[in-house]
Structure formats: structure tokens, C-alpha cells
């Protein structure tokens, strides 16, 4: 416990530094409630995927296909057929479609990794290509507009000023935290990621568990797809481009070990917030994309180094 707080200290410091930069460079526009919500709304979609990604990475895997899965789920959930059905019955049909597609893709990934014994990197690289291709075929590369008003108004609203999307992110993060830290599932995830042979000999069904991790992430992608559909009012095959890199970066900056065996949801949330805040500050300061990229590279390195140093001082070893 103590060492986990220690591990997150670096992130807290990092985020505070970034916020300080924001206040200094764009004070009045940065430190407003609206802007905070803008940052959070932006963070929420990457955030949900990153929470799922934390499980897969902590369990010793990796998933490059999340962006493509989000795209495919968003397209599938906004086809004319789905939307007609949703309009006729209830918008939940669209949500269900997105979640089912996400879970399905995750299942394929999981089965190939766990039972096909293929490297997750390769399996999900293949899925990245295939899911995006499929999304293009289904949508015929058109941007599909969401017409179901109930759907948009339900998810697009706010509760006490907090956008529903942000609330979803918070709920997913909380559920993720409980799942990872308080349940046997979470504990087994860390065991599988830490030493899968030892986990297997301790009676854990390693293959099934690995598969479940990918399904879990697939479902998270489905949720993210719904959120993206709300935010952009569209479903298209270009949704979620390079989302995988953002998500993995957030997870790893947060302190989850890429080699598996250690994961932190709080860290991931911080990682996501750091990136989202940074992007916001870049825009507020009118920075051009090239400079943004250079700064982003430098900041990733600085953040990880900072976090390591602080963790080493606080947490031992």
C-alpha cells in the first residue's frame, strides 16, 4: 500500500507541474470549470480503453488493436440496420451492438493468444488490420451519422454539471480499481502476468484467464465506441486512429509494468490525465503540431524518469 502511494507520487508531482504550466501560460482560460470538463471529456474515451489495457498489460499481454476495435464497434452500432432497430425499440440496441462487437473482437484476440499460443503483439497487429478493413467495408468508408435522438440525449447530457461521458469514465475506473485490487480476478491477473508457469502450477486456468483479459478490454473498447459515437455523433472506420499508442503510453507512464505482473489503475488514470491536460495546454497556447510532438516525446521521457526516481526513493528497490 505504502509503496503504491509512493509509486504514484511521481505522477502526482508530474501532473501538478503540468497544471502549473497550464495556469502560468494560459491562466484565465485554463483554470475554469468548463476547461476542466473539456479536458475530462477528452480524457474519458482514452481513459476507458486505458483501464482495460491496464488489465491486459498487467496480465502479460499487449493489445494494438484497440483503436481498430473502437472503429469497428462504432461502425457496426451505427449501420442503418442497427439504428433502425434502435429507433424502433430502444437505443440500448446500439450500445449492445457496440459492446458485442468489442467483446467479439476481444474474444478472437484472446483465443488466438491463449489457445493459439501466439504473441499478443502479432495477434493484435493482425486484428488491427482486419478490424479496420472490416469497418471500412461495412461503412463503405462513409461516416455514419447517429440519428437516434434518445441515444444522443441520454449520453450527451450532464449530471450536476458533470458530463455523462466523464461519469462513465469515473465508473469504469472505479470498477477497474476494485476488480484489480480487491478481487481474485485481479490477483490472478497479476499472477498470470508475473509468472504464468507458476500461476498455472498453482491451479489458475491461465489460458482462460488470458482470454478473459482480452475480452474485458474488448468490452472497454465497446464502451469507448459508444462514447465516441456520442461525442462525434458518428460512427466511422477512422475512429480511434493510433488510440493504441495513447492508451499504452498512458498505462505505462502510470507505472504498470509492460512485462506484466504489476498494474495500477490509479496510475493509469493519472497517465491519461497527464496526456489530456498536456494536449489542452498545447492548444490553449497555440502550439503547432510539430513542436507538440517534440514536446510530447520529451515529456514522456521526463515523466517516466521522474516517476522512477520518486518510486525508487519511496518504495524501496
Amino acid at each position, binding site marked *: 500500500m505504502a509503496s503504491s502511494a509512493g509509486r504514484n507520487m511521481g505522477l502526482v508531482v508530474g501532473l501538478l507541474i503540468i497544471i502549473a504550466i497550464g495556469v502560468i501560460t494560459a491562466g484565465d*482560460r485554463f483554470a475554469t470549470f468548463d476547461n476542466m470538463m*473539456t479536458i475530462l471529456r477528452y480524457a474519458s474515451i482514452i481513459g476507458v480503453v486505458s483501464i482495460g489495457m491496464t488489465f491486459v498489460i498487467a496480465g502479460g499481454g499487449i493489445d494494438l488493436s484497440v483503436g481498430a476495435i473502437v472503429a469497428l464497434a462504432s461502425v457496426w452500432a451505427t449501420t442503418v440496420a442497427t439504428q433502425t432497430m434502435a429507433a424502433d425499440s430502444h437505443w440500448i440496441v446500439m450500445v449492445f451492438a457496440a459492446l458485442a462487437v468489442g467483446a467479439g473482437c476481444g474474444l478472437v484476440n484472446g483465443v488466438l493468444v491463449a489457445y493459439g499460443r501466439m504473441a499478443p503483439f502479432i495477434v493484435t497487429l493482425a486484428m488491427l488490420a482486419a478490424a479496420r478493413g472490416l469497418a471500412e467495408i461495412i461503412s463503405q468508408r462513409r461516416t455514419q451519422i447517429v440519428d437516434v435522438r434518445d441515444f444522443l440525449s441520454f449520453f450527451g447530457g450532464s449530471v450536476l454539471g458533470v458530463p455523462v461521458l466523464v461519469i462513465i469514465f469515473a465508473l469504469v475506473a472505479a470498477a477497474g480499481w476494485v476488480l484489480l485490487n480487491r478481487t481474485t480476478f485481479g490477483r490472478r491477473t497479476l499472477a498470470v502476468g508475473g509468472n504464468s508457469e507458476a500461476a498455472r502450477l498453482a491451479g489458475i486456468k491461465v489460458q482462460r484467464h488470458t482470454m478473459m483479459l482480452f475480452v474485458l478490454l474488448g468490452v472497454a473498447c465497446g464502451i469507448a465506441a459508444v462514447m465516441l459515437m456520442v461525442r462525434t455523433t458518428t460512427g466511422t472506420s*477512422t475512429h480511434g486512429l493510433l488510440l493504441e499508442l495513447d492508451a499504452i503510453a498512458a498505462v505505462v507512464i502510470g507505472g504498470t509494468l509492460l512485462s506484466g505482473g504489476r498494474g495500477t489503475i490509479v496510475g493509469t488514470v493519472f497517465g491519461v490525465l497527464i496526456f489530456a491536460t498536456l*494536449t489542452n495546454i498545447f492548444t490553449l497556447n497555440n502550439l*503547432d503540431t510539430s513542436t507538440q510532438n517534440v514536446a510530447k516525446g520529451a515529456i514522456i521521457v521526463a515523466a517516466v524518469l521522474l516517476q522512477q526516481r520518486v518510486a525508487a526513493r519511496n518504495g524501496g528497490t
Partner: protein
Amino acid sequence: GCTSNEPESTDDGDENTAEESGDDGAASGGNANDETGETVTIGFSGPEADHGWLAAINSSALAEADKYDDVELRAAEGTNDASLQIQQVETFINEGVDAIVLLPTDGAALTDIATRAMDAGIPVVNVDREFSSPFAARTTILGDNYGMGVSAGTYACQLIEENNIDDPVIAEIAGIDALPLTQDRSQGFADALDACGEDVDNRVAAEFTVQSGEAVTSNLLQAAPEIDIIWNHDDDQGVGVKAAFDNAGRDEFFFIGGAGSSNAMEWIQQGEMEATVLYPPTQAADGIRLARLLAQGKGMSDLVQVEVPRRIVLNAPVVTADNVDEYMHLGFDS
């Protein structure tokens, strides 16, 4: 220098203008040139159709080729990797196609291979992104990126004047920043604004995708609490841009788009968008037509010239509520 248009061959021009078949609808202006001639193989290669405009480029090219019984199309579709596109063009050369229509991922990067195709006797029609050498293409048909920026900027100046806006806040949402075409558009926009003494206050760059359009715009709206004019380079990402406006409940500004998708045209009709600057995706279809004419040794029927001209630059008109009906049919699905 266009040395190929020899004046004495004007006689042959007569047969080109002789008849009108007229069955292709108003836009395509069918004529004797449309009559089936010797069958020619045309290679077509474009960038990855990763968003609506490029998808429309591809599909209009394919559809155009379909209309002609005498055209056999080799479509090596889509890539953003210059090296891969070079491989595709090499394949066309190996196959000995009769003409190549090329919308390069990067004009300069494809110049060398296009020159080699020309050297091999295969006429190349360069579409949209220009080669760096005049010897690389027989004909160049360009959308005018710089002109697009100029049109948008000029229109913005006009709005400022008409509405008497003092010290206007002007925002620009660019497309993929690393592409030369984005640079050209921004340059044109800046130059035109400069002409009326204005400049861009806030500039963000998206990635031609809906999601990126929404993401950068929602941040942009925070950066500038009051905006007078927004020019968005691309109507594909415009869907996301528009969603961000709606999410934030902001509509105090004039919203100008780019490219001219059907969505944008509908918004203009509904009064949700001020205008869009046309950048027609039909240029690849024109490219196919020209390639066919080149391969069959024909000229353009509406010109007196015996041969296809070296260079065609499309106009970048501004579509507004006043003239949107005129342009509606050019709108593409984004």
C-alpha cells in the same frame, strides 16, 4: 513550354466536336469522344482512402472507368506510403499499361517513377498533388490547394466587412499538418487574410478524421472563448468539428468548411454552416477520362486543341446558401 500542340493538326478537331451523345447527364457532357474506341488499359493509383474525400476520389475514378467499355482499369488502391505506391506504379510499367492516372501520396516522391513511366512511353496523368518535374506527367489536373485557402480567406474578409466585425477572432482548423497540401491551404488563407489586414488568431490541426476534428475543436473552443470566423480545411473532419460546436453549445461564429461534402452542403441549406470552399473529388474521374483520351490519341472535344492540354487547374469556388443548389450534385459522402 507546350510544344506538343501543333497548330496544323486542328483539322482533326472537327470530329471531336461533331456529335453529342448527351446521355451522361449535365456534368459529364458526353460527346463523340465517349464512343467506344480501341480498348485501353489504364492504371490508377491513389493514396489510402482513409477518409471521405479520398474515398470519393477512388470511387469516382472507378465509376468513371466503368462507364467506358473500352477502358480496362487496374486500380492499385490506396496507400500512404510513397515506397509502396512506387511499387504499384512499377507494376503498371511492368504490365505495360496504356496510361497511368496517379494521385501521389507525395508529388515529389513519385516524380522519379512517373518520369520513368513517361520514358517507357506510358502517358501519366498527374492528379491533385503535383509532381516536382514537368517531365513526369503528360497532363496535370490539379485541385488548387493554395487557391482554396485564398477563397476561404477572401470570403472571410468579405464577411468581416459585411458584418462590420471589429478586431475579429479568426480560427483555423487545418488537416494533417505534415502534408504539403495543408501548408498550401494555410498559406493561401493567411495571404488572403493579410490582404484585408487580418490574421489567424488560433490554429489547430486535426487529422482529416471525425474524431480528431472533434478533439482539437473542443480544445480550440476553450482556447478562444469568443470566435468570429472558423475555417475548417476539410468537411470530413468537419462532422467532428460540428459535433464539438454542438457539444459546447457554441455558434457565435461563421463556420466555413472545405472540400464540399454532402453533409456540408446540407448544413449550408439548413443554415448551420456559412459556406464551404469546393475542392472536388471528381478530379480523379477527370483524370481517367483524360488518360483514356491520351491512350486513344484523342483530344478534348470542347477545346479546339487537337491534344489534351498539359495542365488543368480546377477552380475553388465558395459554396454558400445562395448557390448551394447549383453545387449539390458535386457533394460527396464523407
